[in-house]
């Protein structure tokens, strides 16, 4: 059974078009991300590992080497077991540093353009045999179904179609930094198609050729040599070289690296891929012996490479044969498309751009895009040229693939050094790679054209070392990797890493990177744009700057040195995906220069440490404890009820806690790193002035959100005890505490007013009594006055009335004054010199008004002329409260004494009673609001709390000394008013 070539071409084109539509729909968001980002889609995409070599060649290889064909896939399974050790760290590195290819990765770790160029050339050399393999598989599979087909026509046609679809899939726009959702999904679909096709062919072979599983077993029982031919060679031959190179190829081949790391979804998919990818390989490979035995039973002529097509064709199953052919097209096209999409940017950044291509005038992105398309074409045509010049006698499909695998395995030593050996150097890596790759090229690559196989000296050595003759790749794997590793280790030990290498090594080994020193000379994003334009072109400069600003959440008005340094690093990272790490570093270094002498902001140092510790989550040992302590202390600081702001030596904000965020409305992220002077008003002026002022504490009034607020500021110098003696100035900073007193002041004022009203109530009865007496007298005199005719008597009685009226007036005035003072709040109270003696006398009188029945004398021993600084009404309130309490505590007939005297620059007033005293367990609580020892209705519990508050406001102190049964003494200390002479 045969097909027309045209039928095969139309079927292939239709299939590829369907693939493109899937990719297009995914990119346009027509396919939900839960499918495009699904871990199983990622695992299926990794199935690009199984190319036409696996699809067609495995049957042929199994016919010669039995189950040994499995080693290629068991090696990939071993690789998946190393996901936590190798794959995940690599994925983190490539994401963090935007390293889109293996050449980028090595060029970052072993810095220098030579590294990128060498890796790219080596990968290119290893890729070409593999591309040739795909062309050959497509040509020969087409000729199995359509024998008259021209090899040249089919080969060139396949290359042309691959070129078109490679550009459509991955080179319609320029940036390789973003995941091509469509490409990944299309490759996953291709894997599904080839997997299903192969499994169907195998299952169909069992049913159609053997009559079912029972028939297969019967056939195997009847032909034990068939199973023996699978088992015996696999027992006798070594598997180790094949396991090693396939383990490396599973993630180091350009297409594998591209799918595994560059195209990986954001979510964690590696855990699923670790089992799903090997499972896919297992299912595909289970069909191989079934197809082989079916071909044997059908008596198909060898080689068995294309039995997958020949078995259904021989049994007259055209639909299955076409599906099997499309499965092969799927395997080949996926490999070619992904490989060229991986290799083209690599060649661009490490072979073309270093020649100065990026600096040509015009739109950088457009030039890069066209360069990439041209490179895709060049790589595919190079693969075709390799195919044309192949020596057909010397190589089966698997041989070509193994040659590529050995070439890629040369990166194993360098990769292990990259991840686990910071001492490895660029010289060591390049030397090892050069030695291994040269030996590989001489012994494996060149013979693919010449057909001469190993040279005599190598053949002798192969025999001497006990390798199986006829398998040069096994011998070359051992020798090239040994030479490579020895050169790598030896020369790394013999040379010293440069500082740049050492820094890259720390990053790659996930050790602590050092903090980038210095600040960018450009002072604003606009300056960034102007300085980048000559290097990248105005359009690209603007686009890259806007992108970096967006990613970091910064604005065009950003001026903080630390943030501008981050902006520079982000631009370099982004450009690394576009130009490669080496050129990106060069371009950014040239455009955005760094002043290394500039001191790194303390805020940046702190953030650096925080990020390091945050990244260290999940670590063991003291780091975890250190992180726990840091987070604990940070929570304490953040949840302080007062605003806390730590400053660096340049008054740059290091810490800005949550309370201060709430108070100021400024977020910590936007404030940290700013100097105080650059903060928005009123905070900039307020804090900068206070931080550099002479006072360590101050109370001020500011307008925030249209409201007047009262803030108390405290300042202390922050000088850690670990300050190095030689650099004390570097660690000087300050801590500012900002306390919002607005609510508390208002509360104090309300309390004072309530207390005053309560006092008014208490004295009301006394007042009524006090006023009642003169009022009775006035009434009585006035009644008698009507009948009095003697003018002298009338004047005397009127004088008596006026005297009693003045008495009433004095009482009323005192009451009104007392009840209204302090209503407007605690701020803005006028402070004057207050004579103490009259104040105490008036307070005593007022107190007694409310305690007429108490029969307690109140005696003042205050010297005349003694003055304090304060507010008369509020101080009067203090003493009214204290004296009233003293009267209440005193027994009938008792006495309350007031003593006053100077004590240095202060005045001490003692209020002494002979009452029952205060029990020690209550002495600590009497200043608490609403705490009272009086009967319900007799006291509000606010008096002493208010007294304490007022005394503190006056800068004074209040102490109590009491013994149960021996009376109580309250001592008030107030600032003494200086004499007029002293003040002058």
């Amino acid at each position: 059974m045969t097909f027309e070539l045209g039928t095969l071409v139309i079927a292939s084109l239709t299939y590829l078009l369907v693939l493109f539509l899937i990719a297009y729909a995914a990119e346009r968001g027509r396919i939900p991300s839960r499918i495009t980002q699904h871990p199983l889609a990622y695992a299926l995409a990794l199935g690009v590992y199984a190319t036409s070599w696996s699809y067609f060649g495995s049957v042929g290889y199994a016919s010669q080497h039995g189950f040994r064909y499995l080693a290629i896939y068991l090696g990939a399974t071993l690789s998946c077991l190393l996901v936590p050790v190798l794959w995940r760290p690599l994925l983190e590195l490539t994401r963090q540093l935007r390293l889109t290819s293996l050449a980028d990765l090595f060029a970052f770790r072993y810095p220098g353009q030579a590294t990128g160029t060498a890796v790219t050339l080596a990968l290119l050399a290893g890729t070409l045999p593999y591309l040739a393999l795909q062309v050959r598989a497509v040509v020969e599979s087409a000729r199995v179904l359509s024998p008259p087909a021209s090899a040249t026509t089919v080969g060139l046609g396949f290359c042309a179609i691959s070129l078109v679809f490679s550009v459509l899939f991955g080179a319609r726009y320029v940036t390789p930094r973003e995941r091509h959702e469509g490409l990944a999904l299309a490759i996953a679909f291709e894997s599904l198609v080839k997997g299903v096709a192969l499994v169907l062919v195998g299952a169909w072979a069992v049913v159609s050729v053997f009559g079912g599983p029972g028939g297969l077993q019967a056939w195997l029982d009847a032909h034990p040599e068939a199973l023996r031919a699978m088992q015996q060679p696999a027992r006798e031959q070594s598997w180790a070289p094949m396991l090693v190179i396939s383990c490396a190829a599973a993630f180091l081949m350009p297409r594998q690296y591209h799918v595994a790391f560059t195209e990986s979804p954001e979510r964690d998919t590696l855990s699923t891929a670790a089992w799903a990818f090997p499972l896919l390989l297992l299912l595909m490979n289970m069909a191989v012996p079934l197809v082989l035995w079916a071909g044997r039973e059908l008596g198909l002529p060898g080689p068995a490479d294309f039995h997958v097509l020949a078995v259904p064709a021989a049994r007259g199953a055209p639909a299955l044969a076409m599906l099997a052919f499309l499965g092969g097209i799927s395997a080949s096209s996926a490999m070619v498309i992904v490989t060229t999409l991986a290799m083209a940017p690599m060649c661009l950044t490490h072979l073309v751009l270093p020649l100065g291509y990026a600096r040509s005038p015009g739109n950088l992105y457009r030039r890069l895009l066209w360069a990439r398309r041209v490179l895709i074409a060049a790589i595919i045509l190079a693969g075709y040229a390799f195919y044309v010049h192949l020596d057909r006698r010397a190589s089966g499909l698997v041989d070509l693939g193994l040659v590529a695998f050995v070439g890629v395995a040369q990166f194993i030593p360098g990769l292990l050094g990259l991840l686990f050996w910071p001492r490895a150097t660029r010289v060591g890596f390049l030397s090892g790679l050069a030695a291994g790759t040269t030996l590989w090229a001489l012994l494996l690559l060149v013979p693919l054209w010449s057909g001469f196989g190993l040279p005599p000296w190598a053949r002798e050595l192969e025999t001497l070392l006990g390798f199986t003759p006829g398998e040069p790749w096994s011998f070359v794997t051992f020798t090239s990797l040994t030479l490579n590793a020895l050169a790598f280790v030896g020369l790394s030990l013999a040379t010293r890493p440069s500082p740049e290498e050492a820094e890259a090594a720390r990053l790659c080994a996930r050790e602590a990177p050092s903090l980038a020193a210095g600040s960018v000379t450009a002072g604003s994003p606009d300056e960034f744009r102007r300085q980048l334009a000559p290097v990248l072109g105005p359009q690209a400069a603007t686009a890259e700057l806007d992108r970096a600003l967006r990613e970091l959440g910064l604005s065009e008005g950003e001026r903080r040195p630390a943030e501008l340094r981050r902006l520079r690093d982000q631009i370099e990272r982004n450009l690394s995906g576009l130009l490669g790490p080496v050129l990106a570093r060069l371009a950014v270094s040239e455009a955005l220069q760094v002043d290394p002498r500039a001191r790194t902001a303390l805020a940046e140092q702190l953030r650096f440490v925080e990020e390091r510790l945050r990244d260290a989550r999940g670590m063991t040992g003291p780091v975890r404890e250190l992180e726990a302590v840091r987070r604990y202390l940070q929570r304490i600081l953040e949840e302080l009820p007062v605003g806390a702001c730590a400053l660096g030596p340049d008054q740059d904000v290091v810490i800005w806690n949550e309370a201060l965020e709430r108070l100021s409305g400024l977020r910590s992220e936007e404030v940290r790193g700013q100097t105080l002077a650059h903060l928005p008003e009123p905070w900039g002026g307020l804090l900068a002035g206070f931080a550099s002022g002479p006072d360590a504490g101050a109370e001020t009034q500011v307008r925030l959100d249209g409201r007047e607020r009262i803030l108390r500021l405290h300042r202390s110098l922050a000088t850690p005890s670990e300050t190095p003696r030689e650099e004390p100035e570097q660690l000087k900073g300050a801590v500012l505490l900002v306390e919002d007193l607005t609510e508390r002041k208002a509360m104090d004022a309300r309390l004072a007013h309530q207390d005053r009203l309560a006092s008014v109530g208490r004295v009301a009865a006394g007042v009524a009594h006090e006023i009642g007496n003169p009022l009775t007298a006035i009434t009585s005199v006035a009644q008698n006055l009507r009948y009095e005719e003697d003018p002298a008597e009338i004047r005397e009685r009127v004088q008596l009335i006026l005297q009693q009226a003045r008495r009433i007036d004095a009482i009323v005035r005192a009451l009104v004054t007392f009840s209204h003072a302090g209503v407007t709040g605690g701020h803005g109270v006028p402070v004057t010199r207050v004579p103490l003696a009259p104040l105490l006398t008036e307070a005593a009188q007022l107190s007694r008004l409310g305690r007429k029945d108490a029969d307690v004398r109140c005696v003042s021993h205050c010297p005349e002329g003694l003055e304090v600084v304060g507010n008369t009404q509020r101080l009067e309130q203090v003493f009214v409260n204290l004296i009233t309490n003293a009267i209440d505590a005193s027994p009938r007939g008792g006495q309350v004494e007031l003593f006053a005297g100077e004590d240095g620059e202060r005045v001490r007033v003692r209020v002494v009673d002979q009452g029952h005293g205060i029990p020690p367990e209550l002495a600590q609580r009497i200043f608490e609001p609403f705490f009272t020892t009086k009967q319900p209705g007799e006291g509000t519990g606010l008096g002493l709390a208010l007294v304490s508050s007022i005394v503190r406001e006056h800068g004074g102190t209040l102490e109590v000394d009491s013994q149960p049964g021996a009376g109580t003494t309250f001592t008030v200390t107030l600032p003494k008013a200086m004499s007029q002479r002293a003040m002058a």
Partner: protein
Amino acid sequence: MKPSSGPGGQPVMLSLFVFAVAALLFGSPLRHLWLREGASWYQPFAVWLGVIVLGAWAARRSAP
């Protein structure tokens, strides 16, 4: 400073252990056990499937 999911961490050691077991099964003379004469044709695939199951378990333990 090494992450627990990096070399030296317990979950990673588990993966390395499974890797070592698999490498022994596939790369050492131990493979004669599942390639011996008379073994059923699907025995290599059964061993392979067992390694995949172990690997899935280890990968799940080491997931971040």
